């Protein structure tokens, strides 16, 4: 069962990361990047690293995405 969860999360991570780098709008990319962070939180927790999982949830998926969004709003929607 755990193996299926790990496999599914890995597949989902690959798909979401690919979607994140191919988005046209940068805001969508950032939201998908947040999704990649959440997926890796699940993986870290399954692989018995709760400290790293908490750090990733707080910093990787939380505040760094928000800082990216603020920087994007400051720069404007340009590519």
């Amino acid at each position, binding site marked *: 069962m755990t193996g299926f969860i790990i496999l599914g999360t890995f597949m989902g991570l690959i798909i979401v990361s690919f979607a994140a780098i191919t988005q046209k709008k940068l805001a969508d990319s950032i939201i998908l990047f947040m999704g990649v962070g959440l997926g890796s939180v699940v993986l870290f927790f399954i692989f018995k690293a*709760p*400290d790293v*999982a*908490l*750090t990733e949830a*707080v*910093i990787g998926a*939380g*505040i760094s995405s*928000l*800082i990216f969004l*603020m*920087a994007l*709003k*400051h720069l404007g929607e340009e590519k």
Partner: protein
Amino acid sequence: MSRRKINIKRELPTTTLSGFALSGLLVLTILNILLHNMPTKIQTAGDALLKLNATEGVANAVTTVIVFFRGLDTLGEIAVLFIASLGIGLMLHSNSKCNIKAESNFMLQTASKILFPVILLFGIYVMIYGHLSPGGGFQGGVIIASGVLLLLISHKAFEVPHSVIVALETFAGVSYVLIGLIGLLVLDVFLGNFLPHDISQMGLLLSGGIIPLIYIIVGIKVGSEMSMIVQNLIKRDHDV
């Protein structure tokens, strides 16, 4: 399209690029030295640290490694975060008050009043119980900073006073170094564990000597620095 290309060329000065190349070269050199001096049985290094962990009387082995065995690294990390915060403050600081055009939604305002104490409590819990459960100073500090961010986007008049940030940051940084120096005086080791840390106390809140103390200090410092970064970005956002 062609105009934008010219802009990109103008915005990338050669000095910065050569600086990046030089630092990359340095990092590669250091990596090369490290890889050549790597011990052959690399998997035993972690085991040795884990065996030593029991002597400090801290339930969470990761905390012992981060704060005690690699305490100097943590001091350096905090210094790096401080420099990042300083750089963002230097680039983005403006004296003008927040002037958001649109009022935020009243649901956001009401929810932030309910959520902010809970976020603050959770951050402080993660910070104080860092030596017993997963988490610690960095995570707790960033959780508190995200609570501050919630208040900043919901209340347009809200602002963390600069003097409070300066006081908290100075207190935290100075006391970290002071604790290290007291350890140097008492035990001849920088950041030595000079408070009682008996193994029979393992798992209690007051255990592990200076380790929970240092994690709380790290939490205060990281929380104030991240709050300052977020506030500078938000205020800069509203100026434009």
